[in-house]
């Protein structure tokens, strides 16, 4: 929940959170209607199972003051929605459907008709996960084939055991899942904060100075001073830059002296000749282990 905050939205935070959480689904509304029905006409058992915990939920998780209190202990801006998972929508709605459908148990035909009707209502009140299309995986690794291709190209064009790279956002997030021998110049949070123009205090800005220069070019297509960019590549030991074929930065990167390594379906891989390449290796713990025993 990047766009709302407890401090910024105050008591409205919860309502905005619920709204984002439910999107265009009406299951929460149906849940509340079912609770009202249970309160008026439900059995003692169903009141105990669903109604009473929901009342507690109303006074805690669904209380607009609750996020304000929790936020004092730790930052829950991005994660408060997980408290909404406690709401047993996943149980009450299907359970109500079962009761409604099996009322017609004596006639199979009617039962099927009611079943189909409830199915349609459920479908109509929600939004289908694959509404925008079902994208089948391309391989057993469940990553785009391009990730594998980029990894191979980098490996075939370096003498480093652990080459460092900077890539476009999606490739950046997936490459190390497949090939952890490729190191990345910046971590996920740095990348996303940079893209989201998150506030950086002076200390963080100083720490991220070189990475921010790299991201300015790779992620925001800015054309910064060439020497400044090359300095950032050298300081971060970044040998490879991977950008989308459509990136306006390609020309700039070649002007900076980066050479083409190859292309995949939608990516271009470029290499920079580091002034003083650092050949990174794994930390050696053998001396510590010997000391321990």
């Amino acid at each position, binding site marked *: 929940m990047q766009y709302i905050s407890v401090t910024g939205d105050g008591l409205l935070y919860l309502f905005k959170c619920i709204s984002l959480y439910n999107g265009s689904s009406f299951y929460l509304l149906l849940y509340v209607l079912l609770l009202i029905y249970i309160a008026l006409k439900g059995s003692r058992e169903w009141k105990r199972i669903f109604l009473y915990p929901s009342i507690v939920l109303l006074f805690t998780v669904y209380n607009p003051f609750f996020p304000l209190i929790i936020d004092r202990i730790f930052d829950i801006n991005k994660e408060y929605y997980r408290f909404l998972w406690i709401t047993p929508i996943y149980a009450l709605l299907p359970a109500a459907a079962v009761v409604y459908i099996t009322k017609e148990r004596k006639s199979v035909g009617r039962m099927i008709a009611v079943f189909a009707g409830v199915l349609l209502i459920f479908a109509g009140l929600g939004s289908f996960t694959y509404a925008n299309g079902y994208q089948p995986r391309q391989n057993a690794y469940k990553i785009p084939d391009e990730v594998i291709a980029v990894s191979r190209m980098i490996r075939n064009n370096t003498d480093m055991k652990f080459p460092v790279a900077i890539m476009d956002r999606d490739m950046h997030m997936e490459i190390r899942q497949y090939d952890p021998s490729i190191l990345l110049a910046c971590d996920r949070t740095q990348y996303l904060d940079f893209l989201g123009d998150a506030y950086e205090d002076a200390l963080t800005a100083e720490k991220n100075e070189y990475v921010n220069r790299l991201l300015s070019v790779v992620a925001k297509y800015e054309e910064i001073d060439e020497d400044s960019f090359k300095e950032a590549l050298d300081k971060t030991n970044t040998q490879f830059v991977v950008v989308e074929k459509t990136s306006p930065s390609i020309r700039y990167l070649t002007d900076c002296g980066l050479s083409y390594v190859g292309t995949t379906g939608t990516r271009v891989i470029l290499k920079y000749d580091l002034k003083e390449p650092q050949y990174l290796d*794994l*930390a050696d713990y053998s001396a510590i282990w010997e000391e321990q025993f």
Partner: protein
Amino acid sequence: MLTAIGCVAAVVFNILIYFILGSMITGRLKERRFSGTLSVITGFFLYYILFDIVCIPITLLYRPLHLLAYIWAGILIALIIISFILNFKKWRVFFTETAAFVKEHLPFVVFLGAFILIVSVVIIYCYQFTLDAAYYVGTASTSLFTDSIKIYDPYTGMWQDHFEMRYFFNNYAVNDAVMCYLTGLHPLIWTKTVMEAVVIILSFTVLYRLGRALFKEDLLKTGIFIFFSMFLCFFYSTIYTSSEFFITRTYEGKTILGSVVLPLILLVYIKLLEDHRDSFCWLLLLLVSLGSIVLSNSSGMLFPAALFVFMLPLFLIKRDPLILVKSAAVSLPCLISVVIYILYVKGYFVLYTMPR
């Protein structure tokens, strides 16, 4: 093809391990009939608790992942043998009864089996891109490749000066790395196929138990309940719902919180409404609490909150103060993990990845 066979074998292996470990507890319950589904659920949490107990000291000693893998494999073999000796007779009766159950309720079993298979295929064969996979799968890949435990940053691969306490007890992804080491499967295949299938099966298991508890063992109603519950999952989709996590981020520990742990707390609550002194229910809650910490750091706040939501009405209904005492006791591990994290964030302590 070989990978597919390996994946199926790994899924069966996981479920069997949970069953075997769980039997060590469920097989000792004298007042209760032995239950396969309950053994799998119990065993799942017991598995991760034991794994964490083994993993944390090895992490603090900066020892390599392969050592953890060998020790863990040895422990599992020992536990399998012990459980076999303790439960063999019970299992024989259980499998005979299960065969009879299958024969008697064949349409239900076929429906459930086919439904699990369809949901699994739909989810597993879909491409899933999430930013968080960079951590979850990245941790498994990095740990396996560097033969270390949490010493390298999964996002960048760079050496870390200190352990990130947010994930220190959360060793679900380290277990993925260990299993990859032992099976030879790539972390992407292990997490995004094997563990996805395991989580789907576990989620169905809890829904099955929930259906039976809600509808007094009526299998037709339970079947319809499971169907609609899963149907709802596919239609309750914004990037925040637990349903969406279940479908698009199945391999993440927090998905297990939303799709297994929270429905399980509801199930235990229903059981406690029948008998609030049922010691197994409280033991199960304790296991879930401890196990949740290993699965996701979100459990620190989510488990106690969920428990409070259900246990307060139980206390008001039963008017037994022991309910509050027991609830506080089972929540304690989660709360302690939160306190440790807060102390770390406030700068009270740091655990370095190399002695100083």
